[in-house]
């Protein structure tokens, strides 16, 4: 089993408030790990530590063989080209069209120059997420579900090895949530990515998870498959699946 993410004893505090107390997590290549937990428990902080947006106070954090603590700015930049991050609100560049949003990482991160290749990649990824007709639209013209699809397309276009999803179905209706969850699963199979999915959405967890972790008070308190955890006797764990 190849470890893509290896976290041991991770701690992070903001001021005097400890957010991550003792996080241990190993993610194997190709695995989909879902992290469930109440709001404000540090789930998003953890994935921001993985991508180097927040530096942890203590513990070890290895991503694709790089120790985040000892990494230089240029190495971090290079590492980030292998990691996709899907923000809760999509974080689409609202002054650019869908096409320009997709071209941005291709020309600035992968430094592609061939216009035909760029066009082909954009069309390919939009077809994969079912947004072929939206290529010349502005992000403000897209619905909530389309924005999520578009954000996923922009993340996938650089073919990252790891994708970190920060509440990918928040703010969507039940049907669109399920569509996005299935899309995440399909894309994981198609692009062979490893994923960590932060969510409160139980149907999304059921569809996407190979393994679920439950986080409370800055620590993981339970781990298992969807069936194992949903049949747990612990009233706190059970409360997530009601």
């Amino acid at each position, binding site marked *: 089993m190849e470890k893509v993410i290896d976290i041991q004893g991770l701690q992070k505090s903001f001021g005097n408030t400890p957010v991550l107390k003792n996080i241990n997590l190993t993610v194997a290549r190709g695995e989909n790990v879902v992290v469930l937990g109440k709001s404000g428990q540090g789930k998003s902080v953890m994935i921001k530590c993985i991508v180097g*947006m927040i530096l942890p106070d203590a513990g070890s954090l290895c991503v694709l063989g790089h120790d985040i603590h000892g990494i230089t700015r240029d190495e971090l930049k290079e590492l980030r080209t292998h990691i996709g991050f899907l923000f809760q609100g999509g974080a689409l560049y609202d002054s650019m069209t869908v096409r320009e949003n997709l071209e941005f*990482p291709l020309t600035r991160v992968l*430094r592609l120059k061939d216009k035909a290749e760029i066009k082909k990649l954009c069309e390919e990824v939009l077809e994969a997420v079912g947004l072929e007709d939206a290529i010349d639209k502005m992000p403000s013209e897209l619905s909530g579900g389309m924005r999520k699809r578009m954000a996923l397309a922009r993340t996938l276009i650089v073919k990252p090895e790891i994708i970190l999803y920060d509440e990918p179905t928040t703010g969507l209706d039940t049907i669109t949530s399920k569509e996005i969850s299935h899309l995440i699963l399909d894309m994981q199979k198609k692009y062979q990515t490893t994923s960590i999915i932060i969510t409160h959405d139980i149907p999304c967890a059921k569809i996407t998870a190979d393994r679920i972790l439950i986080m409370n008070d800055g620590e993981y308190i339970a781990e298992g498959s969807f069936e194992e955890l949903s049949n747990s006797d612990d009233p706190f764990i059970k409360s997530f699946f009601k």
Partner: protein
Amino acid sequence: MKIPSYLTSLLEESGSQAEFFLRFTRNIFKNGFEWNEFVRQCYLIGYKSIGIVVLTGFILGFVLTLQSLPTLKEFGAQNYVPSMVSISVMREIGPVIIGLICAGKVASSIGAELGSMNVTEQIDAMEVSGANPIQFLVVTRILACTLMVPILTLLADTVALAGGFFGINLSADMNAQLYFAKSFQTVVFGDFFPAFIKTFFFGFAIGFIGCYKGYHSDKGTESVGIAANTAVVTASIWIILIDAVMVQITNTFVYN
């Protein structure tokens, strides 16, 4: 001895601005230059400000003429109105007023735009993807401001002379050839050049402060307004300070 909190926050802010300046300089030509975005910003900052700049410049020259004409007439010196207007506009009033107008229009819009990109995590998304948000967002805006503010000032100066011509013809009769000949009769290179140079500093200050305030705004919708507001106030103060320093330098090296 306890250091007062206002002093520590002032030092923190200064350090943060110095660090931002270094990041700007390091990224100007790092892995190429964002020409397309630079041209787009020149269009937004320069072309889109032409209306307000032309209107301000015209009124500036017009009002200055109308205000000074009666007084100079009393001394029989009405012939000096064109040269007085051209010297005042070129040396001081044109650059400073256009600088302040651009601080209001451009610094606020950059502050609000980058602030809102910060709130909606667009800047984080660029950084996390491995792209360079400083090069794409900050370098282009600061350089576009540095280039466009002097051009807008030149435009305003020119229109101000036309405003002056219009103003003088309300109460007297002077043809355009005579008016412009008199306007440039007493103007020397030393009147125009130092004032023109300082507009580059004004432009830089407007772009830099707008970008800094927007880029470092907090993560809330209220912070977008705060970023825009503090960008205008800080950029305006910087323009006045730069003007004071530049006048001293000009007086020392040009007029002595």
